[in-house]
C-alpha cells in the first residue's frame, strides 16, 4: 500500500494523478482516466472530451481564461476569452456579475482606510471553476481577469494588472481612439495575449 500524502488543499493535476498511480486494476485506471479526463478548468458541461486548450503555458496550471476592460457606465470596452470560444458567454456573465463586487468594494462606506484606495482590488469572487480578480484605475476604468480555479499569488495578479494597465494606457493614448469607446486596436489584443501567456511565469519561478 503506497502511503500517499495528498492535502486536499492542493488539488492534483491530471498528470500528477497519472504519475502517482501504481500498478492498479485496469478498470480502476479506466475509471480514473475518465474521472480525470474532464478536469480541465473550463470543464463546464460542454467539454465532454475536449483537450486542454493550447493557450495555457502549463496544462492544468494556472491560466487566464478571460480579461476584460469595463468602462464608466459599466459597459464592456474590451473582453477577450482565452478558452474555447463556446465559453465566451459564460465568461461574459461572470465578468458582468463581478461588477457587483467591485461596486460593493469601492463604494462601501465602512471601508475608508487609505490603503483601500489602491487600484488592485484582489479576488472578487470564486465561481464555478474560476477565480475573478479586479482592478480599478484612477480614471474609474475597471479591469477584470478570470483565471482557473487554482491558487493565484497576489503578486502575480498585481503584476499582470500592472502590465495590462500599461498596455491599456498605450491603447487609449492613440490619438485616433475616442475616449469611452470600445478598444478595437489589434496591437492591443496581441500585446494582451502575450501578457496573458506570460502570466504567472514571472514571479512563480
Amino acid at each position, binding site marked *: 500500500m503506497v502511503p500517499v500524502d495528498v492535502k486536499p488543499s492542493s488539488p492534483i493535476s491530471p498528470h500528477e494523478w497519472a504519475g502517482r498511480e501504481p500498478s492498479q486494476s485496469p478498470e480502476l485506471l479506466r475509471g480514473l482516466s475518465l474521472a480525470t479526463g474532464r478536469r480541465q478548468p473550463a470543464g463546464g458541461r460542454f467539454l465532454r472530451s475536449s483537450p486542454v486548450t493550447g493557450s495555457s503555458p502549463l496544462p492544468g496550471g494556472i491560466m487566464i481564461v478571460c480579461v476584460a476592460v469595463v468602462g464608466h457606465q459599466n459597459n464592456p470596452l474590451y473582453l477577450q476569452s482565452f478558452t474555447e470560444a463556446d465559453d465566451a458567454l459564460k465568461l461574459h456573465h461572470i465578468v458582468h456579475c463581478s461588477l457587483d463586487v467591485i461596486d460593493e468594494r469601492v463604494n462601501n462606506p465602512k471601508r475608508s482606510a487609505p490603503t483601500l*484606495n489602491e487600484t488592485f482590488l484582489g479576488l472578487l469572487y470564486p465561481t464555478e471553476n474560476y477565480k475573478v480578480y479586479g482592478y480599478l484605475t484612477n480614471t474609474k476604468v475597471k479591469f477584470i481577469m478570470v483565471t482557473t480555479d487554482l491558487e493565484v499569488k497576489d503578486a502575480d495578479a498585481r503584476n499582470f494588472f500592472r502590465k495590462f*494597465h500599461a498596455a491599456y494606457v498605450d491603447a487609449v493614448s492613440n490619438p485616433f481612439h475616442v475616449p469611452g469607446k470600445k478598444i478595437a486596436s489589434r496591437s492591443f489584443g496581441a500585446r494582451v495575449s502575450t501578457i496573458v501567456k506570460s502570466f504567472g511565469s514571472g514571479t512563480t519561478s
Partner: protein
Amino acid sequence: MAIAESCVDAVVMEMVAVYCGGLYAAKPELAARRIEAIGFQVGHQLSERYTMERPRFSDHLEAIKFICKDFWSELFKKQIDNLKTNHRGTFVLQDNRFRWLTRVSLDPYTENTDSTENDSAALGDTAAQTTTMLLYFPCGLIRGALTNLGISCSVSADMSNLPAYLICFMPVTIIDSLPKSASPLGTHGGMDNYFWVL
C-alpha cells in the same frame, strides 16, 4: 530634452496660429473651442498615463493636488505655484511663469509708442487675444484630465499680465447651467464644476 520642449512650444504656438489664422480666422470662438477640444483629449490621455501606479483619489482636492504637482511637473517640469480654494468647489491654480507664454512678446515698437493711442490699443488687444488663444489649450488639458478623473468641470482662461496666472474656479452652485458645448467630448462625471483660468 530641451529640444523636445521647444518642439512642444513650437507645436502649441503653431496649432494656435493655424486655428486662429487659417481655419477659423472669421470666428475666433469656434477656433477656441477646437483648440480646447484638442487640449481636452490630450489631457484625458495624459491623465490616464500619469495616474498609473498610484492609489485612487478619494476626493476632489487630491485630484487637484495631483494636477498641481505631478501632472504639471510632468508637463512643465515645475509645479503650480499657488493653489487657493474657497472649499465650495472653487479652486484657483496659479502659475507665475507659465511656460507657453514666456515665448510670447508684443512688438516693442507698438509697445512704447504713443503716436495714436487707439492704434496701439488695437495692437495691444490683438496681442491679448493671441495670448488668450494660447491659453485655451492648457484649459483643455486641465479639463480633460479632471474629467477623466471623474470631475467634470469647465475651464476658461484669462491672464492679467505676462507672465500669465492660471486660476481655476469650481463653484458647485451652477451644476446645470454649464452649456453642453463646454464639454465637447461629453463627461460622465457626477457633478458639474466650473473652472476659470486667470
